[in-house]
């Protein structure tokens, strides 16, 4: 099938998409946007977090076809320079495989709750697994970005 959608403000078209391809696969392998990561492809780790029509979703749980005619924003296009810098400054990045998903999820948190408490940060990022950092510096980074 054919998918046409807006990704990071640009119209993108993919031809001959197999019906079973996830949005994550389409973004990565059809559009070459490898920023969204594929750690579990089961909706458990949040490493593939993107916006679909403004809602935070796991791209691995959305079929590519569902994105047809809709608007997708990925880590490559999200307007989150402050969050991104805070993650670097706080030392919240080690291997970085979880980071793109956390950047998008943090951006989503801060637009809803500009000054979150630690409990709110934990609640909002509970769907983003990081195996490297133990999360302390991620919380620090979110606090930094909120300041």
């Amino acid at each position, binding site marked *: 099938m054919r998918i046409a959608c807006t990704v990071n403000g640009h119209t993108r078209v993919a031809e001959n998409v197999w019906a079973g391809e996830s949005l994550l696969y389409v973004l990565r392998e059809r559009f070459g946007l490898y*920023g969204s990561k594929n*750690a579990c492809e*089961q909706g458990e780790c949040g490493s593939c977090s993107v916006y679909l029509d403004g809602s935070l979703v796991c791209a691995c749980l959305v079929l590519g076809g569902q994105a047809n005619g809709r608007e997708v924003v990925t880590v490559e296009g999200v307007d989150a320079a402050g969050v991104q810098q805070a993650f670097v*400054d706080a*030392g919240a*990045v080690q291997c970085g*495989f979880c980071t793109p998903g956390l950047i998008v999820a943090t951006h989503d948190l801060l637009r809803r709750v500009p000054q979150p*408490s630690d409990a709110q940060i934990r609640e909002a990022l509970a769907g983003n697994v990081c195996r490297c950092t133990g999360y302390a510096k991620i919380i620090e980074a979110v606090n930094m970005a909120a300041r």
Partner: protein
Amino acid sequence: MRVGESVQRVDGPSKVRGTFAYSSDLHAEHMLWGSTVRSPHPYARITSIDTSEARAMPGVHAVLTHEDVPGMKLYGLEIQDQPVLAFDFVRYGGEAVALVAADHPEQARRATQKVRVEYEVLRPVTQAEDALRPDAPRLHPDGNVTRHVKIRHGDQVARADVVVRGEYEIGMQDQAPLGPESGLAVPDAEGGVDLYIATQWLHVDQQQLANILALQPEKVRLTMAGIGGAFGAREDLSMQAHACLLALKTGRPVKISYSRPESFVGHVHRHPGRLSYEHGANTDGMLVYVRARILLDGGAYASSSTAVIANASCFAVGPYRCPNATIDGIVAYSNNPPCGAMRGFGSVQNCYAHEAQMDKLAAALGMDPVELRIRNAMETGTEMITGQKIDGPVPVAELLSRVSSMPLPANVSRPLPVYGEGKGGAVGPADLTAMPGGVSNTTHGEGVKRGIGYAVGFKNIGYSEGFDDHSTARVRLSVIDGRPRVEVHTAAAEVGQGTVMVQAQIAGSELGVNDIVVLNADTRVGSAGSSSASRQTYITGGAVKAAAEAVCQRVLGLAQSELHPASELRIENDNVVGGDGRQIVPLATLLGDAVIEETREFHPRATHRLDPETGQADAHMQYAFAAHRAVVDVDTELGLVKVVELATAQDVGKAINPLAVQGQLEGGAAQGLGLAVMEEIQVQDGVIRNASFTDYLLPTILDMPPLRMDILELGDPNSPYGLKGVGEPPTISSGPAIVAAIRAATGRDIRRVPVRPHDLTL
């Protein structure tokens, strides 16, 4: 960038923007996707493999079996016992049997289902204890004991006033790096291959691949691709040989990227174990003897089992003075998934046991558990149970007294801000996430008991038992656009720990140059050894230091004059300066077009093999220590645990990059917490039942409490800058401290990790 500064990641900006290329992000023109046919049986004889139907499928370009492996059909880090593709037998559920390459990954996956493999199913050996029975099937030609380490130290029949015994069981933990096993193999026109890969040790992969592919090593070139975590899971080959075989067969680039379920069978795990201990002490609490039997299940293939069991045995009694010890460490083959390296490497399993024993002993003696530990703590010069006199700072008592004197967290029932109000806003009911059971809303404090527990652990840094540990660094100084630039080239794997900053900081400190570039790791420079055993900062750091010093000497040789002998000169801020700090000449002027390049190998001091009968030897090069305190709340009615706080003290010798050191202590503690209370690969009849992140639970941001840290820099006189390896100690004692706290909260004799709700309620 200087040694001792908190330096931000050089790869940070690309990682936060999503442009950093991990091994799973690679692609090439006309690339094919590889997929692997895996055994559904833990133990079976292969009677036939029919690939004809799969070959005929649309989009399929190749289907390979063991017959297509041109070179060695077996590989392995220490013992070559694992088939590249199974022949004759499969020995674990998920073992690789055949390969497919196709245009689309789904075509490849579907074709794997059409490879017809006939099996004669055999009864699997699913317990290490069963593997040791005389009537057990022989899984490998040399029998089922992969290694038996015997330690016989001091009086073997010593007697003591107070004796405590315990049996402990450790579940199988997964490293679960978030980045899947993946890579891209690109064939060249001359029969060679380039592999872009996420691995912990490029050169050992290269050597193994050359053997498997029957190619000269220089025809198998490896380039590091971005690594999404490792923790031991990338020490062994996974898809490397498979991608290369398919690429060489099809003449096209081939990418393989495992799904998460496949990853669970595609790499080795932390050994599960059963440990029986007996501790004897005098009435004053001094240890008289420890006798222990440690049985680890190595699974179907050896991987690094022989080194893991050596560690489990050498550190069996913990960082304590113990004049008499009888230790039998046995690792056995079974038909369970293979086990090998994971952060802590053998020192994790035994720490649960020796720390539980110390608490038991304290209870039997009516002593405070911290006081008992301090009384028995190793010091500089203490003779280990292997006979090695431990040198350098040995701050075991210091670490324990530091963690025990840190302030304790407040009780949970304090009111916390309501959702949506934010910092300093109105206060409302207690935050559910602070309770055992979290937002499941299972308790508001009723039935919740608090406990506090302590643990201390230690392990070796670097390779042991006579292995020639070393690393290579090439440092090159030149002038680019009028500015001096230093390029550092090593093959060290950046797994997330920050070796790229460490290398830049060391070169920056030694050379006084501001523009430092660390080149991507590949096999065009000599081996760095693996990013494991907490060794890379020490060993590759040592190599970078040596090469940078050599470059510096040559520069100063160029700059010296009668007035300014080289011995009085140094480089600072891109200038050669004299003893008084005054500029002699800018580096750029001095060098002009000249390029100064030096390559150095660094070898730490030698180690020796354990005596096969007594286990006595100076087997290890450096030791690192950490202590943890855990505070937990347990819902005693439901058996749910909330780790409220962790506190740690660790001697890192010298913190090269303090920010990264903190990250290691925090991340390592989280992995310790995981094994203590949630992480276990459930293996039933030899088959993994929970091979997904839905069913294998990793600590989330809700599970990991704040960590208090006290980082000591006591300086090891033998190592570069006095540093000690940092990465593993945080994973060793964190979990045992948590389990001790759960015991304290519940009064239950917990013998098994991870602790499950029914262990606390039934």
